[in-house]
């Protein structure tokens, strides 16, 4: 059995796929050096020509490349689950980068849990970077006052005083998580339905899993590096489309003091 299946999901990342693929390669190599068996796969959902060409040229180290045509991030991830041989599965977005210890530390944390726990693991921090910060650059350790890059710290649902109601108002965890394959098999992502104004697959998935008793935990000393774009990010698109998360019919906030 393979320890981890790592999926990277592409659609039209273009040149941004190059650093993402390199970062993933490093991630996988570090995990293999640590003794883990890792399956590296790409899911390409309606890829554009440039992205396809890049993966073809620089992705020959990948174990497989699946070409899909869902046009939906959640359905693409769902499609990857039965094809994975790993006990654990993690998904990566094709325009980000990841601290090289992510797989090693997430796997170590996951296998230390009791067999029936099966938490969903998130990196401890996200580093959001803006290319335009080159215009707000600092050459010493004091940031330019207008620099936009920042650090963001996840908190696990096991944190004292964690208020899960907040998850109705904001997504508390990023999409690139790590979990046992049974979690992905049990809780599939729901497709975005722009005609209903509902979607945001990872947010809805976080709500559904948490309310069903699956803990979301953070893995210390891990970081994902998220590219912030002035336009065209998924978050901006969700806002522009006025999307709200799919909510299961039986899940409501707890009200009152």
């Amino acid at each position, binding site marked *: 059995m393979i320890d981890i299946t790592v999926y990277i999901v592409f659609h039209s990342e273009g040149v941004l796929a*190059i*650093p993402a693929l*390199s*970062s993933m390669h*490093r991630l996988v190599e570090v995990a293999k050096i640590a003794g883990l068996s890792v399956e590296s796969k790409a899911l390409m959902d309606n890829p554009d020509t440039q992205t396809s060409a890049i993966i073809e040229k620089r992705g020959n180290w990948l174990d497989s490349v699946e070409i899909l045509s869902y046009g939906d991030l959640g359905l693409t991830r769902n499609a990857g689950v039965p094809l994975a041989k790993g006990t654990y599965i993690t998904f990566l977005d094709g325009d980000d*980068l990841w*601290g*090289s*210890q992510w797989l090693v530390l997430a796997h170590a944390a996951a296998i230390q849990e009791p067999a029936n726990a099966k938490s969903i693991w998130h990196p*401890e*921090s996200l*580093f959001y*970077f*803006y290319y335009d*910060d*080159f215009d*707000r*650059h*600092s*050459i*010493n*350790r*004091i*940031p330019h006052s207008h*620099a*936009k*890059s*920042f*650090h*963001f*710290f*996840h*908190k696990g649902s096991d*944190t004292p*005083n*964690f*208020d899960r*109601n907040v998850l*109705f*108002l*904001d997504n*508390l*965890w990023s999409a690139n998580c790590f979990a046992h394959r049974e979690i992905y098999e049990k809780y599939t992502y729901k497709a975005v339905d722009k005609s209903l*104004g*509902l979607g945001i697959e990872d947010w809805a998935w976080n709500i559904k899993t948490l309310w069903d008793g699956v803990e979301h935990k953070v893995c*210390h*000393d*891990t*970081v994902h*590096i998220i*590219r912030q774009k002035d336009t065209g990010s998924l978050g901006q698109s969700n806002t522009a489309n*006025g999307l*709200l998360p799919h*909510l299961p019919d039986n899940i*409501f*906030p*707890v*009200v*009152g*003091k």
Partner: protein
Amino acid sequence: MLMQINHKVNLLISNATLRYFKNALSPFLNRIPVLKSFLSYPFKKLPTKALSEEDKIFKTFVEKIFDHEFYLICNSDVKKAGLEPLEHWLNYGMTEGRAMSARAEYIHGSTDHTNGPDWQHFSWKGSPVAIRVNPLSQRVIAQILEQAEFDLGILAAGAETIESLPFYFATDSVARSHVDMSAIFKSLPFIPSIIIVTPFLCTGGAEKYAADLVQTFSQISSDPILVIVTEDTAQTCQGWQSLSILDPFKDQNILFWRDVCGPGYANPCILARFLHAIRPRIIVINNSRLGLDTTAGYGLGLSQYAKIFCTFFSVGLNGLGAPYGARYPHKILQYSAALTDNPRMADRLRDMWGDIPGPGIVELPAKTQLIDESTFRARMCFRLALNTDKNRHRQWLWVSRIEPFKGTKILSALARLRPSESFKIFGPLQGSFEDQDLNLPNILYGGVLGNIALADFRNHDGFVFTSLFEGMPNIALEMSQHAIPLILADVGGLRGTFDDTAAKFVMHKDTITDTAIAFSGALDNVCRMQGADIERMVIAARDQVSARHSAQAYKKNVRKIFDL
């Protein structure tokens, strides 16, 4: 004199501050001898108070995280004065809000919203201080720097500065979006099925419309109701309970959105997600800009669970005054019904936006409190008796907000045309009488009326309504209960309630003078009316209001429109 000053300064000045003064003023010492004397005076050191145990704990903690270099780079005054950075921060910088380190943030004084596990709480000289340290580890920083091999954009802000960049915690919504997300649901006593979103709790037509709606909802349905007030805070509308038109709100749960959210309250995204979490079956957006923006942005998702209604009362005069009726209908009509109180607005909306697929445009005439028959008859009899004296001094009644859109210039011109008659005006004043040309000897201001239904207007010859545009003005409906002839500008939804047997309508003309002349003609007509004519007129007005605006008619309409 100098000694006296020095004596006082002795009590106030610290050694560090004196050193700062000396450095800063040194270029001027030779030119201004008194300065030299002042600064060379042997000031006593401030007596150093012994630190309390709490202070010592705090200082020990700060010593570990305080960034001397950072502090001096950011505070050139401290550097120039040669002050010790940590001491300066503890004694001055902290209260002045100066950052102690790029890797730590603190709140001094009010430490509300610092209950999360990341905050450490201390006390310094009696004041609470909360400090939060960036938990970024060197192992994580190394991993970030390592990735620059693949994309140098990661270091765009500066390779040296990565660890000093701002940091946020996912669960700290106050820092991230200036909204206290945990407080929002805690403030709710129940999950409501009907939500009314309205901006203010004050006297106004829109507020009355919402209040009447809430009252009727509570009478015909057992669904729990929540009123969300989006602009007023509990403090800014203090005393709203004394406003009789808002009586129906008293028994309802009121959520002051600004109070529970905090400074980021105006973000439509947060209100949308809140409504989405609650999933009420009815949402009424009543003149709330935030509510309208929420519907425009997120109405599609919200309408999967809720029937949404947005009230629009008027499009204004060519959009003057930027009424919501002019700017929002096309943005919300795909997801929300446009709810209006008058047929003219309904027709206008249908003409402009009727082809937009969606819930459509619905009319719910306003509710008015009807007077009992005997009181009405008594008022009418008094008036008919008064009318027998044709030579009496004529006094006209004008009640509205005293502001230009209500036609105050027309009123002024009309008063000038009829100098021997007087005009008694009531209502809240916006601006000044001078600006609106109302400083005339025959215009008498009576203040703001507390309760129009109970007021005595029997000595007035007619009610004059000069407004430039309207939805359905409640005041005209209320006046119909006073058995008084109505002389009304032909605006808004008035024609939907009154016909020519019930009121003298006056069309607005191209100029104020021409409109005033038209009003004056209508007043002449009223003066010429015989008792029987007046009786027919006031009864017609009362009957027409009863047919369309009674509590029964209103309730029937609410049941039908909201499917209750």
